[in-house]
């Protein structure tokens, strides 16, 4: 077994007296796609926030490629290789679609402090951004202002920003939430592609069982902030622990609930 790319050790956060994430220890292997499931309020998104740094942990550590990144800022973690797409669409609403993606490409080129050339003169950045828009099938909307896009296209752009970032660890928080039946496959195919062709490590918060069954190598279950189960999909879904933890309703029942 190779050394894990991402690890959380006793990762904990408390909000007042409430423990939202309770001492979660978990390691993620390179190239593995892990689905994180659990009922609403189980701490899935909070767990994500702790890993990507939006919320500082009360205790415990986050390690990326063996390095402790617990004390680093969000932008430092991003540059170190943790990329995040958000559950609620989180874009630059009054800029164009192309500009949104180009900003990510530019962030990686380190040209952010270049003040005396025009942004448009960097053709290589524009081309890189367009190539990504082509992959998410948004190229024809490139000149549109983001706030005018449909919800589904905004979700696609959210994923496009993450692909442009091309981090070592991809974190998707319900990437297909609110997408139509026609649109969701585009995003799911992209995630499958990341896993199969480029062997990226993916963390995926998802409620839809069919999506999990299709993509996941492994499922971890969070319940009241704690790690309740961890293993291959079939095993976790069938496990007694999970069945009991959810009062005999089974994982499927819980997932349908939310």
């Amino acid at each position, binding site marked *: 077994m190779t050394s894990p790319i991402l690890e959380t050790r006793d990762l904990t956060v408390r909000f007042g007296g409430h423990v939202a994430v309770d001492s979660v220890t978990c390691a993620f292997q390179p190239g593995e796609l892990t689905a994180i499931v659990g009922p609403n309020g189980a701490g899935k998104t909070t767990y994500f926030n702790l890993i*990507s740094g*939006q919320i500082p942990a009360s205790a415990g550590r986050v390690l990326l490629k063996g390095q402790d990144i617990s004390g680093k*800022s*969000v*932008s430092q973690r*991003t*540059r170190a290789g943790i990329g*995040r797409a*958000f559950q609620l669409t*989180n*874009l*630059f*609403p*009054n*800029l164009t679609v192309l*500009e949104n993606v*180009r*900003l*990510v490409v*530019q*962030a*990686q080129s380190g*040209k*952010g*402090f*270049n*003040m*005396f*050339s*025009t*942004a*448009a*003169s*960097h053709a290589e950045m524009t081309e890189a951004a367009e190539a990504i828009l082509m992959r998410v099938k948004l190229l024809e909307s490139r000149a549109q202002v983001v706030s005018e896009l449909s919800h589904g296209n905004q979700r696609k752009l959210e994923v496009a*920003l993450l692909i442009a*970032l091309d981090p070592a660890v991809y974190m998707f928080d319900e990437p297909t939430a609110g997408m139509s039946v026609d649109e969701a496959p585009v995003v799911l195919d992209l995630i499958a592609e990341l896993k199969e062709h480029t062997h990226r490590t993916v963390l995926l918060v998802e409620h839809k069982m069919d999506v999990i069954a299709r993509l996941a190598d492994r499922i971890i279950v969070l319940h009241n902030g704690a790690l309740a189960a961890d293993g291959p999909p079939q095993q976790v879904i069938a496990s007694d622990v999970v069945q009991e933890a959810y009062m005999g309703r089974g994982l499927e029942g819980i997932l349908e609930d939310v």
Partner: protein
Amino acid sequence: MIKLLLSGDTPRSTVLAVILGVILVCLALAPFLFPGVRTVDTAARICVFIVLVASYDLLLGYGGIVSFAHTMFFGIGAYGVALASTHMGRGFDAVFVGALAGTGVAAALALLIGLFSLRVRAIFFAMITLAVASAVAVLVSQLSGLTGGEDGLTFQTPRALGPAFKFGDELFGVKLNGKLLAYYFVFFGALILFLLLLRIVNSPFGRVLQAIRENDFRAEAIGYRVVYYRVAATCLSAGAAALAGALYAVWLRYVGPDTTLSMELMIDILLMVVIGGMGTMYGAVIGATLFVVAQNYLQNLMGAASGLVTDVPILPELLSADRWLLWLGVLFILSVYFFPTGVVGRLRQGRQA
């Protein structure tokens, strides 16, 4: 070529392009088109305010940062030139040393304020700038030995920029003297600074600022250190404001707290940015021109209007030249109501519709 000068950021509206062209031509040929001490003075003020307002737009319209210290930076540049000219004697060397020193001090002060307050919430930065600006204004009026206090400083600019300097007879009936050169010094200085600011907002750096204004949370999550960009924008904007102040000092040959440091001036700048259109740069041109012209000529216009309606009751009272501030206020309320995105925003929308 023009596209390169404008950094690819064209007006994107025919009406706007025409208006901007007219303003440019009028300012470029002001001494010949509108000969007269007062008109040329108005034109020079417009040039200076375009730069001042554009530099504020960089901060507010692009960076989304509210500052109340912009006149302070403007004043630092102006006082830099005044102090250098007073102590070094008249000459271009004094102007350049003063302008550079003023710009340096302004940028350093901006860096300090930024590093202290931009890490936390944006509102905190606004409060700090208000406090520092008030403190500096008090300091300038108290340190009368150095700054001339409330009276300000009158000083001499280079001989070549004074009315006594003649380099020819007349051209199209305009005396070729140092005052004409001083106007063109201000005009070209302002033009270069404006084009430079336009380049900065259209650079990769400018895009990051826009991204931060739109969504600082996500800007951080795609790897930009937001606080560094905000601080850099604050310093740049302060430096540009100080250079505008230096131009103003060269033109007026006088600096005082009222002309360069007052809170009223700060509010004027805010109004000019909002009227012209935030985050457009060209809005600064439109806003500054409209505002300075209204400030200088509304009174005359109303005096004339009042004279026309002397027989009608009440109207002459309302239109009396003394009420000009009231009407200026009404004009602003109307413009903000009808053009919430500023004149430039409105014109650009019109094209898309």
